[in-house]
C-alpha cells in the first residue's frame, strides 16, 4: 500500500540548521549534513532543506551545504529557498538535490514552474505555499518572502494554477500554525488536497503523533513535514512512525 510520508525539514541559515517559531526567534540546531543522515537513519521518508536566508544572500554556502548533505543521502532530497530561475534550479540539482521547492519566484513569474518542469520533470518541482487564514473569511492568503509579504492570491486557487503549470507536489505551510506545536491546519490542508490531483505535503504545527494522524485522516494530506519536533528530541522519528502506524495510518516501517 502507498504509505503516508513523514518528512523531516531542515531550515538552514548560513549553513546551519535553525528553526523559528512563526518565522522568528531562530535557534541553532546543528549541521545540516549530519542531521539529514540522522533523520534518514531513524526513518524519515524524505528530507527537505529550506534555506531561509537565501532570498537575500549566501548562495554559495547553500550549494556547498546541499552537496555535503546529498553525498550520503539515499532517500528523496528537496531543496528550497531563493531559487528564482531554471539556472538556479540546475545548480541545486547538480549539487545533488532530487527536487527543488519554489515559492516567491513562482508567484512573481509562474512560467518558471513550467520551465523547470520541462527540463527536469514535474516530479522534481515542488511549489511551496505559505498560507495564512484571512480573518472573518473562509479563505487563506498566500504570502511570499518568508511570510513577509501578502501575494494577493488565494492559496487554493494558486495551488490549482501551480498544478496546471507543471508542479509535481505542493508543500503547504500554515503560517498560523508554524512552530506552535498545536497541530496542522487540517481545514487548509483539506481545502488544497481536495482541489488538486498532485500530492500535498502538510506543514506547520506538528507537535505529536496525533497531529500527523489527524492531518492524514481529516486533512487528506499525502505527506506531512515537521522540523523542530525532530531536532530537539521532543519526539524521535522512529517512535513517531510506530505511533502513527499503530493508529492505522500506512507508514513505511520497518525502513
Amino acid at each position, binding site marked *: 500500500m502507498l504509505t503516508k510520508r513523514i518528512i523531516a525539514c531542515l531550515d538552514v541559515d548560513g549553513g546551519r540548521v535553525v528553526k523559528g517559531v512563526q518565522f522568528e526567534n531562530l535557534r541553532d540546531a546543528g549541521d545540516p549534513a549530519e542531521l539529514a543522515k540522522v533523520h534518514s537513519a531513524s526513518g524519515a521518508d524524505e528530507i527537505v532543506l529550506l534555506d531561509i536566508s537565501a532570498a537575500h544572500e549566501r548562495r554559495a554556502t547553500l550549494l556547498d551545504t546541499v552537496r555535503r548533505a546529498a553525498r550520503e543521502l539515499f532517500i528523496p532530497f528537496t531543496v528550497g529557498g531563493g531559487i528564482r530561475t531554471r539556472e538556479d534550479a540546475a545548480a541545486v540539482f547538480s549539487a545533488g538535490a532530487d527536487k527543488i521547492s519554489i515559492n516567491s519566484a513562482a508567484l512573481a513569474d509562474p512560467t518558471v514552474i513550467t520551465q523547470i518542469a520541462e527540463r*527536469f520533470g514535474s516530479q522534481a518541482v515542488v511549489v511551496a505555499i505559505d498560507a495564512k487564514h484571512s480573518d472573518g473569511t473562509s479563505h487563506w492568503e498566500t504570502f511570499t518572502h518568508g511570510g513577509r509579504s501578502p501575494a494577493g492570491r488565494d492559496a487554493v486557487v494558486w495551488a490549482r494554477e501551480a498544478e496546471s503549470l507543471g508542479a509535481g507536489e505542493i508543500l503547504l505551510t500554515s503560517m498560523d500554525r508554524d512552530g506552535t506545536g498545536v497541530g496542522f491546519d487540517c481545514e487548509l490542508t483539506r481545502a488544497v488536497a481536495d482541489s488538486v490531483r498532485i500530492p500535498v505535503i502538510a506543514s506547520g504545527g506538528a507537535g505529536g503523533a496525533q497531529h500527523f494522524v489527524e492531518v492524514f485522516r481529516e486533512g487528506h494530506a499525502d505527506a506531512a513535514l515537521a522540523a523542530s519536533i525532530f531536532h530537539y528530541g521532543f519526539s524521535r522519528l522512529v517512535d513517531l512512525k510506530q505511533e502513527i502506524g499503530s493508529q492505522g495510518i500506512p507508514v513505511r516501517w520497518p525502513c
Partner: protein
Amino acid sequence: MIAIVDYGAGNLVSVKKAMDWLGQECAITSDPGQVEKAAKIVLPGVGHFASTAALGRSGLRDAIADAIGRGVPFLGICVGMQWMYERSQESPQTPGLGVLNGECERFPANVKSPHVGWNQLEGAPSSRLLRGVPQSSFVYFTHSFRAPVTETTVAVCDYGGRFSAVVERDHLFGVQFHPEKSGEIGLTMLANFCAL
C-alpha cells in the same frame, strides 16, 4: 565502466552518487561511442515518455540496442524501464525499444496520479536483482504511467491495481521505482546489478 546514459531528460546526479558510494567506476555520458564500450548500461529517466525520442536522434538508441544484443547488462529506471517496452500511452508516436512486450498505460481514474511515495514490492525470490531484498520491502516511486504485468515481471506493486515494479529477463533489468532514492534496499539492488 558503467555508462549512465544522459539524453537530456532529468537529473542523473543521484544515480551517479549511488554508484560512487558503491565504489563503482561509472560515467554520465551522452556519447554513443562510450555507451558501446561500457561493461554495463544504466538508463535513468524522469518526466515524459516523449523525451526518450532524443535517444533515437542521438544514436544512443542504436548503441544501446547493439550492446544489449552483445549481452551487456542493462538497467532501465523509471521512464528508462518504460522505454524497454514497445510503447507508452503517454506518447503513442514515440517508439520504445521493444525488448519487452506490451504497452505502458496510465493509472485508472479512481486513484490520484502521479503515484508518489514509498510503496511495497511483492516479488519472486529467484530474482537476481532482488537478491537480499526482503519480501514487502518499501521503495520510492514517482510516476504517472505504469508497465503491465507480463512474463518478465519479477516483482509487482499495487496502486489502483498491480503493475510491474521489477522486470528481469537474461541480462535485461528494469525498475519502475528509484533504487538510488530507496535507502539501503535500493542500494542493495544497485549493488546486485553491479555485481553481475
